[in-house]
């Protein structure tokens, strides 16, 4: 067998990162147990300090994120919620007020406050204001965008108060989402914007959270996601592109929400995702790319999605027997007979969990009922499926997050030698939470001690893996929006 002697760019970069990671692990093994405990500890206080500081004021370098301020709100608030904390009433009010200023007059949220104070003089100079609310002389100059809409909605749900939830104009949101829907079925990021899997996920996620998902929004979006699953098994941003962790999460979560997940080749998808976990313990976003802490959630979350909303992983690991749990690689289950719009996510918000059919049960499997029950995330089965180990290496991932992605001074990051930021703080912590609860048989149970790496104080709040908001905030919002009918649009 010939072997190539020349080291390629991929190999060189990979070996550099591996050396860094190896060094971190070697340091860990070489220090006394007391230091080890400290290294493996989630530095809650420092993370909180870093997060709260950012929520108040950001330095000039954040100008680059000027059009992403709802995202910064979400990353910070969700991280705080994962740490089991919340912001005080004043800060909550300020956040609601700020995000309301980002909400567009025709629904959706822009990247920053869209209204500017006008005095009459200014108003009359400008001959053709695009939109004008006659009483206040406001003009909206920011364009709503699906990604910032998703971020704002998730941030408001994370805040959780009635005031916060009521600040979202669901009627106009529905109009906005309809406006973003392309005739092909997929969604655009913004007016005349790009179509991709992110847009589909953020649209469907927001609609589902707000209980305004209906047939019109769902129509053909599954076809688009399906066309983005690649020969590798993962999902790409657009048809033809490369399989990618972020889009795989978005695509899978969308398919679950619209109840078409079995149209995907799940065996291929799982096989692709498990191979994204590298020797470092963390996940990479694509084959032969470098590990990055944020994929702890995007890739790790895929397992949480499948484990909780699909029985393909739902059976006990050691279980097999005639007629059950056959391993279909190339023959995904037929599309579920029942459409989601008739079930839980209907826009009238009247259906109850009792109406739900068991959509995701592969034929023949009798012992793992796994309905799409978003109210009981983590609840899998009454058949005593305790201690189902996740299909990825949860402990190795936690080790990577704590030792290689954590800045002891506060905040989390991509990998050693990188600096912390709010995006990575949010997604590393989300991934850590996914790991800690990955053994669980139901959502009310506490994680097994061995499922949590490091001191027990490392334990974070559980998340709802489809929306990535803390679970109890999801429940509160879900209940809230189930009660209220959509305002007429």
């Amino acid at each position, binding site marked *: 067998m010939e072997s*190539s002697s020349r080291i390629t760019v991929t190999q060189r970069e990979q070996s550099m990162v591996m050396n860094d990671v190896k060094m971190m692990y070697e340091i860990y093994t070489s220090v006394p147990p007391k230091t080890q405990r400290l290294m493996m500890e989630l530095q809650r206080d420092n993370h909180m300090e870093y997060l709260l500081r*950012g*929520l108040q004021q950001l330095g000039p370098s954040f100008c*680059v994120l000027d*059009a992403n*301020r709802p995202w910064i709100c979400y990353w*910070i608030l969700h991280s705080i919620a994962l740490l089991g904390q919340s912001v005080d009433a004043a800060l909550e009010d300020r956040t609601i007020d700020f995000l309301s200023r980002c909400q567009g007059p025709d629904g959706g949220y822009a990247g920053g406050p869209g209204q500017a104070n006008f005095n009459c003089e200014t108003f009359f100079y400008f001959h053709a*204001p695009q939109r004008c609310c006659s009483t206040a002389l406001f003009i909206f100059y920011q364009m709503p965008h699906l990604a910032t809409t998703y971020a704002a909605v998730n941030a408001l749900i994370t805040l959780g108060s009635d005031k916060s939830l009521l600040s979202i104009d669901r009627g106009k949101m529905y109009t906005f989402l309809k406006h973003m829907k392309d005739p092909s079925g997929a969604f655009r990021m913004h007016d005349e914007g790009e179509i991709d899997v992110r847009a589909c996920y953020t649209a469907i996620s927001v609609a589902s959270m707000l209980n305004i998902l209906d047939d019109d929004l769902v129509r053909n979006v599954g076809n688009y996601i399906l066309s983005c699953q690649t020969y590798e098994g993962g999902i790409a941003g657009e048809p033809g592109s490369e399989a990618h962790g972020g889009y795989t999460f978005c695509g899978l979560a969308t398919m679950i929400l619209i109840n078409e997940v079995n149209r995907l080749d799940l065996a291929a998808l799982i096989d692709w995702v498990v*191979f994204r976990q590298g020797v470092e313990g963390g996940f990479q976003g*694509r084959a032969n790319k470098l590990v990055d802490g944020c994929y702890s959630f995007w890739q790790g979350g895929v397992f949480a999605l499948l484990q909780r909303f699909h029985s393909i992983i739902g059976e006990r690991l050691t279980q097999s027997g005639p007629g059950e749990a056959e391993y279909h690689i190339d023959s995904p289950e037929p599309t579920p007979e029942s459409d989601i719009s008739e079930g839980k996510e209907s826009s009238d918000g009247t259906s109850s969990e009792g109406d739900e059919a068991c959509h995701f049960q592969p034929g023949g499997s009798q012992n793992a009922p796994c309905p799409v029950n978003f109210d009981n995330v983590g609840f899998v089965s009454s058949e005593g499926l305790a201690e189902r180990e996740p299909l990825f290496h949860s402990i190795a991932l936690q080790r990577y997050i704590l030792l290689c992605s954590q800045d002891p001074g506060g905040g989390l990051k991509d990998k050693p030698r990188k600096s912390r930021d709010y995006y990575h703080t949010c997604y590393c912590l989300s991934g850590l939470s996914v790991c800690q609860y990955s053994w669980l048989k139901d959502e009310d149970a506490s994680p097994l001690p061995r499922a949590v790496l490091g001191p027990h104080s490392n334990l974070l709040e559980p998340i709802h893996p489809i929306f990535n908001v803390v679970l109890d905030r999801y429940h509160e919002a879900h209940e809230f929006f189930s009660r209220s009918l959509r305002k007429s649009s």
Partner: protein
Amino acid sequence: MDSDKEQLEQETLPLSLSLSLRPEWSDVKPIPQDDGPNPVVEIAYKQDFRETMDYFRAIYSAKELSPRALQLTREAILLNPGNYTIKTLKIGKCDSENGEAVTPKTFMNVWHFRRQILEALDANLLEELDFVGCIAKDNSKNYQIWHHRRWVAQKLGTSATSKELDFTRKILSLDAKNYHAWSHRQWVLQALGGWEDELDYCQQLLEEDIYNNSAWNQRYFVITRSPFLGGLEAMRDSEVSYTVEAIMSNPDNESPWRYLRGLYKNDTESWINDPKVSSVCLKVLNAKSNHVFALSMLLDLLCHGFQPSQDFREAIDALTSDSAPIDSDLAKAICDVLQRVDMMRANYWIWRKSKLTPVA
């Protein structure tokens, strides 16, 4: 106004001159952002950033589709908030040394408005491509820039084909896995054409770095979608040979293994029965190192009905530790080996084993 614009294009523009001091802007009243009395995630804007955006809000609200508005969007895009040094921008010559000229990451409405202005002014879009090119080189992971470029190229049509292929090639020479650049390139090929040399290009990139999964993905894109190659089945034989060679030189490289499987997409029968597939597995197994992907593929083959010869059984036997007797079911035995040698995925292989259809 057109000549003004040209002048602006050509001269070196000192960014330090405040808009409020420029006579051509004296009739415009800037509109400050209203963050509210107590905003969160408040950004301490640099003065020039704040001022430019205040003027932008003014012209945006007025829908002023004018050359000076175009110029203003340019300044907004070129503003470098992270690295505030007074510098001049040599318009038209903007190479990577000028890497400080970083644009803010999004600015979606600035870009959106710029498109409206370009359209209204019937502006020279080839120049626009150059402008975007300067910015994209330093911001090659920005969705907005690529979306804008796609819009411009679409307007230009096939006259932009070679320019776009060259441009993405340039970006990919700096970062061979840039997702946006690949996506743009695929769009160019599909919308504007230029497929002729694409397989050679993939070949070249893979020669440089056989681990470049993006290049493998592009190769798959080309062989399945190029109007000149006759499609997957027509290409399969030669592609399998190429891929097998790549596997044999680097059996630890996941990319060609996935590519090989992809070559038989929707044709499982051919995949199972093609001796080239099973034999590459066997060869790698017999070499006894870097064989995780070979084991994995053999497992998949068996799951789909591949009938292994005694050679395969012996190869697996040789990989099994002496103490443990090999499972009579070859697929199970493979899962056992994988569980041991591929520890990161031990749970996955246990699960795979649990999902095996019992031998009849």
